[in-house]
């Protein structure tokens, strides 16, 4: 039943769909960045498709991608796109699902925003921007949603170290960690 969705999509937008796949019975369609808005509005408005319920939008950073047991050609390299933004959609009427994926190069991570097509993606795209630094053109107010404005960098990118904190406020009389500063050890400590 679900192959029908992918077949219909490739039939309607032959040049927009780069490739399709249904691994683990998740229908996925890789879409070109320029055609995304047209494909999305068609998917929502076409009665046979009726994808009216947005599920989630996130991004995958492929920079560390070295799959085990796969030929080296599949590993990530400079030529390959670094980010893939995924939109998962669901139809309440027909009960079928599809995932649109858009591949973005490293130097220019921008794509048209789907916040107007489905309002749920307004916050989801802000979260993806906050975490991965993907710019969504046409988004009503693209600003950080989880982190504070003063935060520099995009934490969920693979090259951002996990424990690099950018503290807003710290106690002024913070007890010095004796391990880190042995000379500041208090004489009562080592007795």
């Amino acid at each position: 039943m679900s192959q029908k969705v992918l077949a219909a999509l490739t039939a309607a937008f032959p040049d927009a769909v780069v490739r399709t796949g249904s691994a683990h019975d998740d229908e996925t369609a890789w879409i070109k960045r320029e055609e995304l808005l047209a494909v999305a509005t068609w998917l929502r408005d076409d009665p046979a498709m009726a994808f009216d319920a947005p599920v989630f939008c996130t991004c995958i950073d492929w920079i560390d991608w070295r799959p085990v047991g796969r030929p080296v050609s599949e590993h990530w390299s400079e030529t390959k796109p670094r980010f893939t933004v995924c939109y998962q959609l669901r139809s309440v009427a027909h009960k079928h699902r599809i995932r649109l994926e858009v591949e973005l190069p490293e130097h220019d991570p921008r794509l048209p925003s789907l916040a107007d097509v489905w309002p749920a993606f307004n916050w989801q795209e802000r979260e993806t921007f906050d975490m991965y630094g993907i710019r969504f053109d046409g988004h009503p107010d693209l600003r950080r949603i989880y982190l504070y404005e003063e935060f520099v960098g995009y934490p969920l990118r693979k090259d951002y170290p996990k424990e690099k904190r950018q503290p807003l406020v710290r106690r002024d009389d913070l007890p010095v960690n004796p391990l880190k500063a042995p000379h500041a050890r208090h004489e009562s400590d080592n007795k």
Partner: protein
Amino acid sequence: MGLELSTTRLEDAAKWAKQSKLARVPEWGRKFSLFTYPFVTACCGMEFMSVAAPKYDIARFGAEFPRFSPRQSDLLMIVGTITEKQGPALKRVYDQMAEPKWVIAFGVCASTGGFYQNYHAMPGADQVIPVDVYIPGCPPRPEQVLDALMMLMDRIQDGRGHSQLRLKRDQMIASAQSDDGQ
């Protein structure tokens, strides 16, 4: 002014924080009427509800009535993870509390950050404010919370809470300066 009053570290403070019999009376009153400001953020909140619920009743210790304004509360209960974005809010709430005030770090996230060692979770609330009693556990069992409350009561009675020590230190510095002044 030979007193080394640079720190409220509890080991040093014990030396000069001698308490007169008279000073123990108001502490006794404060000990049994703690008004908690529940600074609830995360999963420990569920356990905080269980502590306040009929089975593990915290009302038996006079600390049941949560006050949601720092002006009327003297025990700040940090329940759950403190993130970097929450840091300024926590510090402001602590500063706006009336003296003397005490802080309980409820759960391992408030004490040391627990197993959230990353860019947004703060490694313990004591990075921002002095904490009197730490409660381990994720979330701690209600009995641990009641035990921590009793531990805090002893500390209040002996006058060795952080804010009590700081007040005593400031008094001693002020009196020392007024002696020098004359």
